[in-house]
């Protein structure tokens, strides 16, 4: 179990929409060993308030030196991060957790929604290199075009076929990613890798259940430490009780989790 606490320099800041930011961090220790689906814990400031680190999935690595995180500004921590400048340093812990268990058998399908698309980019890169015979399908959804276009572009640069969906119809299908999934002619040996808002993951899990597809989901919870000490990041499991998203996950087999289906 290799983990690092690194002072990492911000080498690039990109703004995709008014509230969506992508940071590229110079972090050889973490970037060189990170696996798709793993995450990092980042201090968003140097003061006691906000106190806790914030979890971010690793959205891409390059050259074993840099990695990226993608986030939407949702509170004080992300707001502070969004106001950082290139050249500044951030304290980062990682890489943490159990990532996607990826293989090349069957049809791999990456399904992402909103900021949940972030770790799938990393996975997409990994699978496009590893599984040259059967590259993964990509189905991604977001609120609107300006959020989605840069990510769709990244997937396309990997040579992957992308099926976008937007809430407002400004890019791709006007509606949900599950609509897109229903419309695709998927093989029976499909393996889904899913990350996104909880209702979306629930819907994809149900879709997979119906068709008997394998499904891995990356769970987002609040957490204080990211390393198995605070026990704050629980998710309910099917057999009863809880698992810890930081150490048992964040990626789980969907069928092992307990889903609240209304």
């Amino acid at each position: 179990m290799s983990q690092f606490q690194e002072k990492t320099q911000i080498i690039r800041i990109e703004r995709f929409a008014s509230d969506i930011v992508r940071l590229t961090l110079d972090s050889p220790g973490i970037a060189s060993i990170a696996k798709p689906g793993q995450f990092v814990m980042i201090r968003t400031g140097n003061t006691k308030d906000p106190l806790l680190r914030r979890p971010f999935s690793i959205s891409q690595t390059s050259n074993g030196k840099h990695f990226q995180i993608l986030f939407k500004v949702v509170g004080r921590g992300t707001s502070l991060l969004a106001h950082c400048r290139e050249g500044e340093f951030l304290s980062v812990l990682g890489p943490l957790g159990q990532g996607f268990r990826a293989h090349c058998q069957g049809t791999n399908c990456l399904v992402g929604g909103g900021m949940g698309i972030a770790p799938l980019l990393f996975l997409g890169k990994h699978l496009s290199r590893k599984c040259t015979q059967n590259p993964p399908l990509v189905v991604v959804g977001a609120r609107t075009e300006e959020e989605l276009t840069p990510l769709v572009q990244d997937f396309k640069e990997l040579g992957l076929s992308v099926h976008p969906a937007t809430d407002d119809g400004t890019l791709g299908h006007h509606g949900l990613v599950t609509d897109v999934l229903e419309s695709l002619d998927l093989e029976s040996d499909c393996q889904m890798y899913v990350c996104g808002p909880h209702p979306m993951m629930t819907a994809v899990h149900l879709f997979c259940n119906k068709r008997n597809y394998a499904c891995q989901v990356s769970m987002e919870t609040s957490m204080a430490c990211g390393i198995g000490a605070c026990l704050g990041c629980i998710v309910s499991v099917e057999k009863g009780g809880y698992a810890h998203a930081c150490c048992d996950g964040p990626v789980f087999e969907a069928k092992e989790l307990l889903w609240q289906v209304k």
Partner: protein
Amino acid sequence: MASQVNGVDLRVSIGSLNLKNPVMTASGTFGYAREFSPYVNLHRLGAVVVKGISLEPRLGNPPPRIVETSAGMLNAIGLENVGVERFISEKMESLQGINVPVFVNILGDTLDEYREIAARLAGVKGVAGIEVNISCPNVKKGGVAFGTVPEMAAAVTKAVKAESTVPVVVKLSPNVTDITVIARAVEEAGADAVSLINTLIGMAINPRSRRPCLANVIGGLSGPAIKPVALRMVYQVAQAVSIPVIGIGGIENADDVVEFMLAGATAVQIGTANFVNPRASEEAVEGLAHYVVEQKIGSVRELIGGLVLP
């Protein structure tokens, strides 16, 4: 840096137990220590206190269990733990290898449960001390927390002391009218030391959803926000008892350690800071050694209760 630490006298004693320095880790914030081994040279710490253990395994509370607050956090983990048997069979082995005194934090719903856990831990290799969490509700007394009634706190202390072969530290709840009364009660009942403070009961509400931020509605407040309260209570308790006091509450670095020792603490525990900076405990040891050298004092023990009053 290491030689600096090695050359400086940071030793303190808790009852019959000698620690190489006063920096311990607080229960529930350091897992079973191995979680921190990628970040911390565990053998450089004064002692480690592991997650609270009950007689039977506990699942803990439903989510959300934690929420950040101003300069702190609230938690309502609900004492999730593997139970004393699995603790001994699964967790003790790696703890035996870390070459640091290990305190096992114990908790129960009844006096008998405390007694049974203490008896089960007696003689287990690698257990250097017991820390008794008395902030739990006594189910046989209508759910009143053991730690809020002097007689109940004393009874738990006596029960655990009777079964234990190692020093017993009683961890005090700050959610009382006068913490010195409880401290004196557990001292008379035979406690070898007291540790304080446990978390302050608090609450957070989401104004948009109009719901409590924690599923348990209320939780324990920790972090820098509670440090002034903890310092005050350590100061008061240190004057009320003659057993060692272990200071806890918002400690992040060596300066914080020094403050608690000046207020009367013999040792300290670092808690929530471990979440923010997993190296906080070891860095506090290093910083404390620098402080002792810089201040030209013979040993760290000279700091205990050394507050200069106006």
